[in-house]
């Protein structure tokens, strides 16, 4: 069951990759794009594997990718944990929801590009700042999803726990959280690419490191090979993380006897 679902995920990724490459080639071919700015899949391959400087190129790209993944990873975890904790608080207390929801909405409605310079003043330009910026990207959609998941728990099951003298905490642990697991994993999956975008935004505006800044730098120094390679690498990284979360999701949900 798990194996079958995982294989299905991998197959769909393979198909998407082929489609993206075909669309990419067609785009270059059809629009006669200027060779100064556009690179094709074979150029990226050459840059990474067959060029004279391929080893240096790989080291450069890998170094940037690691920084971006660390930035995105910390933010993703922080955002999801915060969303899960606050979602539980919302479900346990309507007052908490009424008090906090507007704050969450504000965080969501101010464009991050505008907010980032202010955040850097408060939190500096290191890992703390990127974690917070990425966390904000991840937090809101995850919060809404998880609250929905927690509320989807069967009221009869909650009543049963209460009837047997269980506390609210027990109901949360035994009924609400298992019900919210599918929603939690969905949030994690859709947040992963978002976290990477957030990390690159933070790198662009705050830290000046990682793939986010490298791509910007490439544009002003005419390093199109590196630029397109970064796009490919970061796309693949998003895909891989998405699939990893899917695999974990399949395992955990199978353990809880759900198929979500």
């Amino acid at each position, binding site marked *: 069951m798990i194996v079958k679902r995982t294989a299905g995920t991998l197959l*769909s*990724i393979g*198909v*998407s990759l082929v*489609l*993206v490459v*075909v*669309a990419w080639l*067609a*785009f270059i071919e*059809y*629009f006669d794009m*200027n*060779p*100064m*700015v556009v690179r094709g899949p074979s150029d990226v391959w050459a840059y990474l594997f067959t060029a004279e400087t391929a080893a240096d190129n790989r080291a450069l790209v890998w170094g940037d990718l690691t920084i971006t993944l660390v930035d995105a990873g910390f933010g993703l975890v922080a955002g999801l944990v915060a969303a899960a904790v606050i979602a539980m608080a919302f479900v346990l207390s309507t007052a908490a929801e009424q008090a906090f929801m507007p704050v969450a909405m504000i965080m969501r409605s101010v464009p991050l590009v505008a907010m980032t*310079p202010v955040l*850097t*003043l408060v939190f500096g*330009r290191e890992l703390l700042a990127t974690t917070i910026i990425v966390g904000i990207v991840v937090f809101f959609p995850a919060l809404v999803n998880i609250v929905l998941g927690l509320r989807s728990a069967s009221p009869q099951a909650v009543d049963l726990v209460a009837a047997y003298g269980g506390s609210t905490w027990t109901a949360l642990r035994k009924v609400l959280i298992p019900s919210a697991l599918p929603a939690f994993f969905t949030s994690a999956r*859709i947040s992963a*690419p*978002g976290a*990477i*975008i957030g990390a690159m935004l933070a790198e*662009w*505006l*705050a*830290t*000046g490191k990682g793939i986010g*800044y490298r791509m*910007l*730098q490439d*544009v*002003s*120094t*005419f*390093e*199109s090979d590196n630029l397109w390679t970064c*796009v490919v690498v*970061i*796309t693949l990284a*998003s*895909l891989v993380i*998405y699939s990893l979360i899917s695999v974990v999701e399949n395992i955990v949900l199978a353990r809880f006897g759900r198929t979500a």
Partner: protein
Amino acid sequence: MTYDLDRRTLLRGGLFATGLLAAAPLLAACGDDEPSTEATGAAGAIGAGSLRLSWVKNVEFAGAYIADTNGYYKEEGFTSFELIGGGPTATPAETDVVTGKALIGISAPDTAAAAILKGAPIKVIGAEFQKNPFCILSMADNPIKTVADLKGKKIGVQATNEAIWAAFLKANNIDPASLEKVPVQFDPMPLTTGTVDGWMSFITNEPNALRLKGFEVETMMFADNNYPLVSEVYVVKTETIEKRRATLKAFIRAQAKGWKENLKNPEIGAKLAVEKYGKDLGLELEEQILESKDGNKLILTPDTEKNGLFTVTPELIQQNIETLKFAGLEITAERLFDLSIVEEVYKEDPSLV
């Protein structure tokens, strides 16, 4: 971009590819507005022109604003002339010129050389600033006066200046790892709050802005530190030089007329920047006047007074090529500069000098 790409690819699979292809003609339609007609020189026959500026629309481009407002571009035969603004994260002007988004771009020789070495078919046909305007701005109580002072400091560098910053460090034998580069944007606030110790800028811009706000500042000119380059150069495609000389001459004449007005009265350009072209930037007139005067000093030198605006003497070209060499940009004068158009303009009409 990547975000959308992954998600949609995964969620919708093949639908995405179809969507992309369907949307493509629309994308193409907005990209290409290269003027296609070449003219033989008669007024009113050279079609539309466009100039990609190297920075936001402040007084730095006073000559162009005056030429536009007073109709000099039209007088010289352009049916219309568009001024395209740049900024701290804009694509380099070279890219816009190569892809045909702009006929002419304003840039710097180091950026242009970097582009040419990467295969861009472009050349520099003239230079507004005879002296490199870049400097490192710092606060007087934490000054950066020499390149040695840069060590261990945090320097704010705009992404658009990356090529120049890298070349400057190389020319001065500074290891980029010996200092910390911080990405910054348009407003020098991070310098005043101490987030960074130094700020890369034009000597004409941020230093004046901060002085007017009452800050005591220190500046270190690139020109005084192994980096004497001309700047605000006109970059065009080599194809344009070959096939559209008349158009380029018309442009040079219009620019020369515009700049001459500003040299006489630097307040005209400042006013146009504040009230018309850079209206939404919130520029201050007093600061723009200072900047206009400082800019004029970089444009009008004994050489340009004698030979005409935007000319570059052979000695200065040689100095530029040597500087670029130190900065790791090995390029010959012939590959980077072609001043024949500017020279012809003044030969044909010596009254413009």
